[in-house]
């Protein structure tokens, strides 16, 4: 009766052996020489074959990286850690040194921006923007159908109540899929540390902007004049930021007449002048909010209600008599910048 178990074992085992040996031989016979880096990269990748990189699976991406077609930081789920490993394998540093996140450059929600017509088509920004420039009076404004929300693989973008998407800074990995998805080109990637940005992309003349939206950039140039770093230039009726120069002091957001410039810092610390004040008056001069008062050669005072917490006086004070009170972490960061 032993043949009843022996023969099945032998036949299936034999089949397995034949196929195994056959495959082993075939693997040698049909061996394709691949760049060893491809395999190394494949090992470093998450291996989810998610396709966010735009290549068919992780192996496709690995080949593209070795061929130089794809950037080493192209793997979104892998994040900076994988980018670093891949950079090492490829013999170059990861291109992204600093974490970047998405910024939505439009504040024209339902209550602030006017509509042009009632749109009843597909619930899709791409489709809506094709019809007569979209249903918003502003031809640059966010359409609010959430193409960016849908495309975000990390659930980092949510549609706000006013119809303007809100980016969760912590969840955003800076993959840039939303930047590509937005038919208006409103979303840009900026460094995580950037706190102040223009919440508008309109290049229309002031009269046109004002008619369409309450919070549009009219290119008045007040911010450019007040910016202590000289980081803003006015061109095409628009305030262009040089984000390399910008220190996120928030002065521009304070002086902007239409509030088109957004300050992401919710509570800035206030300036407080200590007893070391020599009354030189420099702080009084630099203060964009005119919050500092006082006679020459006597201790100056800060009007706490007027102070916007830009920290300019703190930086300029020659005797370091000024402290920024509250929001401690921010002050320390500020010191690092100065």
């Amino acid at each position, binding site marked *: 009766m032993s043949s009843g178990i022996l023969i099945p074992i032998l*036949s299936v085992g034999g089949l397995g052996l034949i196929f195994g040996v*056959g495959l082993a031989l075939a693997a040698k016979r049909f*061996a394709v020489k691949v760049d060893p880096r491809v395999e190394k990269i494949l090992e470093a990748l998450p291996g989810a074959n998610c396709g966010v990189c735009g290549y068919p699976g992780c192996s496709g991406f690995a080949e593209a990286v070795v061929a130089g077609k794809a950037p080493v930081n192209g793997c979104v789920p892998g994040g900076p850690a994988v980018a670093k490993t891949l950079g090492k394998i490829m013999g170059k540093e990861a291109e992204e040194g600093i974490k970047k996140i998405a910024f939505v450059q439009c504040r024209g929600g339902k209550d602030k921006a006017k509509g042009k017509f009632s749109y009843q088509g597909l619930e899709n920004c791409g489709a809506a923007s094709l019809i007569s420039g979209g249903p918003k009076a502003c031809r640059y404004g966010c359409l609010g159908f959430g193409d960016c929300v849908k495309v975000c693989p990390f659930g980092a973008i949510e549609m706000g109540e006013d119809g303007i998407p809100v980016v969760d800074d912590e969840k955003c990995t800076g993959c840039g899929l939303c930047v590509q998805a937005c038919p208006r080109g409103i979303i840009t990637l900026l460094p995580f540390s950037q706190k102040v940005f223009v919440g508008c992309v309109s290049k229309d003349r002031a009269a046109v902007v004002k008619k369409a939206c309450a919070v549009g950039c009219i290119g008045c140039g007040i911010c450019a004049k007040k910016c202590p770093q000289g980081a803003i230039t006015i061109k095409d009726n628009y305030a262009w930021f040089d984000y390399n120069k910008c220190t996120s002091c928030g002065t521009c957001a304070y002086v902007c007449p239409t509030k088109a410039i957004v300050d992401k810092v919710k509570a800035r610390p206030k300036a407080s002048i200590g007893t070391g004040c020599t009354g030189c008056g420099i702080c009084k001069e630099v203060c964009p909010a005119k919050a500092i008062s006082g006679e020459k050669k006597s201790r100056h005072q800060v009007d706490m209600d007027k102070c916007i917490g830009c920290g300019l006086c703190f930086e300029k004070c020659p005797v370091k008599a000024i402290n920024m009170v509250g929001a401690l972490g921010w002050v320390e960061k500020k010191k690092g910048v100065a």
Partner: protein
Amino acid sequence: MSIGHLLIIAVASILVNNFVLSRFLGLCPYIGVSKQLDSAIGMGMAVIFVMTMASLSTWAIYTYLLAPATSIWKIDLTYLRTISFILVIASLVQLVEMVLQKTVPTLYRALGIYLPLITTNCAVLGVTVLNIDKRFGLVESLVQGFTAGVGFTLALILMAGIREKLDLADIPKPLRGIPIAFIVAGIMSIAFLGFSGLVTE
């Protein structure tokens, strides 16, 4: 065995007994790879290829090894067909993948990751088991294998086309994504029921 007979097998496995919509086999790739038309076509081609190859090889294994065992060794080995078929299909796909990579790199790239993904897909195993159940000969098995793949591809492409349109539709929030895809799959299955009775087995 006439052309008409083969034609009936073809119509039966493409429409009447569609592997996805009537037999409910291979549902995982059906939902998983039907988001985009491009990948649906790639997957479909890989399935057609593997099903045809699997029909050929399993037919050979069954006819020349498992079935004759009864007369030679006086022992019925046919119960081993599932495990040996999986073994055969998996090794065959591996082999084909290697050969393709070496000889036809373009086809290898076109099939991409789909080829290894379907090595042990239940639809592939299903078609080989059905071949045996129906006592098909070599040609019939090949026709059934090929057309079952075509039927799978048809269902996948139809689904992908619908889902690409669904992406743009205003769907109630709880139903977005997979839920609506399931509902669509159910409706498509009901639609394919209309073919039943077209061919009597």
